């Protein structure tokens, strides 16, 4: 009887521990990027756990006293199939709208600077690949909305009840620096 109880406790541990470890995994430790020279880290940087077929909005207060370095990272499970939009939260005016990846352009260049949010571009001056970034300089303090749309994965035809979903992490990286004085 005692042996049976011991076996039962051991089996319980085997069952419960893996599920607890699943809960302990997270997006928090991904894409650690140190601020570059002249830029400072902010608490506005956010990593979120995301799923295909959903839209994620990040409402960010930007002060007119700073310039902001904005960059995005996403798990490979999304294959860069995402859309990034930056708009004024108060009236919906659009400032930026780019896909995760643009691919090869008509002139043969691949994901030229400013065309995509996730795919690196080759910088001729620096002679190396650069992860895309955007520098935002607000004239007035403003509430900006960063909208990240992750489309559905195309599932098998005819399957209405079940759909294929993919999960992963998305990081909105925001550095800041004081505006240069004129």
């Amino acid at each position, binding site marked *: 009887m005692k042996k049976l109880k011991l076996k039962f406790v051991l089996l319980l541990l085997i069952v419960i521990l893996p599920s607890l470890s699943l809960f302990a995994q997270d997006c928090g430790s991904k894409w650690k990027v140190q601020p570059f020279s002249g830029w400072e*880290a902010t608490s506005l940087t956010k990593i979120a*756990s995301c799923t295909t077929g959903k839209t994620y909005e990040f409402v*960010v207060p930007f002060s007119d006293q700073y310039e902001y370095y904005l960059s995005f990272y996403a798990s490979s499970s999304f294959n860069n199939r995402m859309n990034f939009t930056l708009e004024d939260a108060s009236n919906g005016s659009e400032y930026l709208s780019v896909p995760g990846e643009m691919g090869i352009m008509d002139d043969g260049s691949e994901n030229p600077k400013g065309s995509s949010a996730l795919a690196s571009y080759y910088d001729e001056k620096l002679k190396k690949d650069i992860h895309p970034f955007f520098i*935002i300089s607000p004239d007035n303090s403003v509430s900006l909305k960063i909208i990240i749309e992750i489309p559905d994965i195309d599932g098998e035809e005819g399957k209405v009840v079940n759909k294929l979903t993919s999960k992963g992490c998305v990081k909105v990286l925001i550095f800041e620096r004081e505006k240069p004085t004129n």
Partner: protein
Amino acid sequence: MKKNTFFIITMLIIGSLWITSCDPKSTNNNGEDGEDTTKTTNNVEESDVETFYLVPSPKDIFGFTDDKSLVFNSELINPTENVENYIDNKRKQLNFGIYAADLAYVAAYEKGNETVKYLDVVRNLSNKIGIGDVFNESLTKRIQNLTSNKDSLIVVSTDTYFDVIRYLEKKEKISTLALIATGGWIESLYIVVNLTTFEERSKSIQAIADQKIVFFNLMMYLEQNQSDPNIQDVLEQLAPIKSIYEELEVVNMESHPKTDDNEKIVIGGSAKISISEDQFNKLKQTISKIRNNFTGNSVP
């Protein structure tokens, strides 16, 4: 007996699988290190849009302390001795944010001894609210080696705040994070409004008016978590500030982006917020009352 054991274990397996695959709030069930899983799931009803409201750190709110009219005033910060008075969790968490803002303030003014004192109180309070793990060996060593160099004081105090935020997000302690952000915001603004004399079109006054944007982000963040009674209570306490900020005149402007020579996206803000002397005084009085209620200090 064996049949019963088998039944219980089978139910536990099914139960644990159900929990890890169906919790829409869980950010943890996405494979190793939160990465890359693809699976077929039931088409359950979930909101298709998830919104995050982001709140800047106290250091950013003090971003304009270079203004020469703003001086250091030790009477404005919450005395470290008060830490022993905070018994319930809500006050501990709010005052953690308050002390974090005080830490950013003393560090910004290069007060070496006070910075160490406030880092100690933040560390002390972090143990009481269950986030003591943030102060690992590396951070503790950095604090111990602090010099009176302005940059290192600011860098260490800011890094401490970011480490706390990252830790709370990782552990999904959303209510704690919301209360800490509230404490940090109220203390930062309390210090700034009490250091500032009203002068139309001054940089500091405009920055105080602009805090309307941050405040409404904070309110939305709190409202997302108002099922927590502590947050509901704080929302009610913050209502008078909301009324004042709602009264501030907003001058709408045409917003359009332009790219300058350095390839910056220059955003013409859509609205300029203005604040009158009366509104400023009302805001100052209300902020002071709420802040002193949080800290347990008497209204000056």
